[in-house]
């Protein structure tokens, strides 16, 4: 007999979406269950579900209430979420270049000073971790990575910056991330990547999937400029590691 997992909370997000919540915190195991449920629903679709949105701790399931009602869908989601076993997440492994500090990472030195370490040590720690794409959200391609070294956890800035550069690599709390488009941010800016996680006229339009494994490696500002130029012309300047 298959063991059953603890049930997630089924929360209504209006009349056309359900939030399946596995945890209220950032929690690696909860994120794994989110991604597993997402995969299960992709492999064995339930009629009426129109779209799913994985996040750190919950899966948002959009549905058409004219096709399936709340109670029926909630029951099916609970059953799927409690089934034992890990779906094959088919995670890919990416190596993503980052140039740290200087004009590309204006907070690097301040963050290092606050944490009581040298900028080089901070870069070594930030590039030394195995990350996973926990979720992509807020704006196109904004990839939230889990797996940040606890030694570089920093509270967010008191006041967010209204505009930060496309490709910014930053840390905020226990999170680090790859921001694709320019926009506001309350995180600390460590560097930039030439990799476009979202680029409309490229195949694929979206580079990363939730669940993908990511490691970062340092490049200098000159290499950044070269690869940024190539990326602008549609080249994928991230490396896919053969599995």
């Amino acid at each position: 007999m298959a063991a059953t997992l603890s049930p997630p909370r089924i929360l209504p997000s209006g009349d056309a979406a359900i939030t399946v919540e596995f945890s209220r915190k950032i929690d690696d195991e909860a994120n794994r269950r989110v991604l597993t449920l997402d995969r299960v629903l992709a492999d064995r679709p339930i009629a009426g579900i129109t779209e799913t949105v994985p996040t750190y701790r919950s899966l948002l399931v959009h549905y058409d209430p004219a096709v399936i009602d709340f109670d029926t869908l909630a029951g099916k989601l609970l059953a799927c979420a409690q089934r034992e076993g890990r779906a094959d997440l088919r995670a890919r492994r990416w190596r993503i270049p980052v140039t740290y500090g200087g004009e590309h990472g204006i907070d690097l030195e301040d963050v290092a000073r606050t944490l009581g370490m040298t900028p080089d040590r901070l870069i070594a720690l930030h590039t030394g971790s195995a990350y996973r794409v926990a979720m992509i959200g807020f704006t196109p391609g904004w990839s939230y990575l889990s797996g940040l070294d606890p030694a570089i956890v920093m509270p967010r800035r008191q006041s967010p910056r209204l505009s930060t550069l496309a490709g910014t690599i930053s840390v905020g709390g226990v999170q680090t991330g790859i921001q694709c488009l320019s926009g506001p941010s309350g995180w600390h800016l460590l560097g930039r990547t030439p990799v476009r996680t979202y680029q409309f006229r490229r195949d694929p339009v979206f580079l990363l999937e939730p669940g993908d494994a990511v490691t970062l490696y340092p490049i200098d500002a000159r290499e950044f400029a070269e690869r940024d130029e190539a990326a602008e012309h549609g080249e994928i300047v991230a490396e896919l590691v053969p599995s």
Partner: protein
Amino acid sequence: MSRLLVTTVGPATSVQDAGRYGAQRYGLTPSGAMDRLSLAIANCLVGNPLFAAAIEIGPLGASFTARDGAVRVALAGAARGSRIGDHDATPYQSHLLAEGESLTLGAARDGVFSYLAIEGGVQGEQMFGSLAVNARAGLGSPYPRPLQGGDAIETLAASTAPEHAILLPAPVQGPIRVILGPQDDEFDRDAIAAFLDSEWKISGTSDRMGYRLEGGLEVRHLHGHNIVSDGTVNGSIQVPGNGQPIVLMPDRGTSGGYPKIATVISADIGRFAQIPAGRGLRFRAVGMSEAQAAARDMAKLLEGLPSRLRRPTDSSFDVDALQSANVAGSAISAFDVPT
């Protein structure tokens, strides 16, 4: 091929359709019409698919001119003065703009957004199955940004089809209906009462991303205003640190880190979008079965729109027809002129 030239235009005017779905998991918000019912009505009047792309016109006036041939158009949504040349052009009816003729629209008098549908639709490049403008993501066609004077929308030459009016049921009125959650447990009974019992006003800083509410009692959090980000929907009502809610609209971020006390039901989000800044409103909590029944009623209304088409009455002074044709609120006088 005809063109509809944008002669003058105010802010918040853009090409919109049903929006783009399927990529919220990558952070791509759906965009799409703020008031889908009005979009569908305008399209229905010119014989288009209900959710074809049309021009969503913001609260200020606008004018358009037909070029390289005749263009058939219809206007629905917010009440505003509407003229073709020297003649009144009744809203909620299709009209032919002859080559060189101009349609002049006044500022919205009631409501916020109007939809100008064009027979044959907007010619453009589909992006994720949609022409809807999402300026931040660089998406939208024919222009990936709000419309500006001098822009031209390519469309098909007007057909020889007869003109149409439409007979609509009385609009839904009363408080905006919400379902509590998904994070209503971040608030105590008093905070939920403050949210439901206050009269709110839409702030002037609202836009297609979100409508900020002000003027109500502070909605206090139990455990602070930061939660771990999770997914949002159109109508998510998040409460930031100042206790004044924000209702997320079609250009929202796909995830957010403020607790969401409630969600506007899908049947009411369009009429909520049409409430102008400064106007008072209240919310009413409903159960899932009432909300889903309203959603099914809305789906039926949309599906049945083509059967509601009528030939326009000969007289443009038929006040009954004008009133029944006006879903956005108050009656439209045939004597109104653009302001």
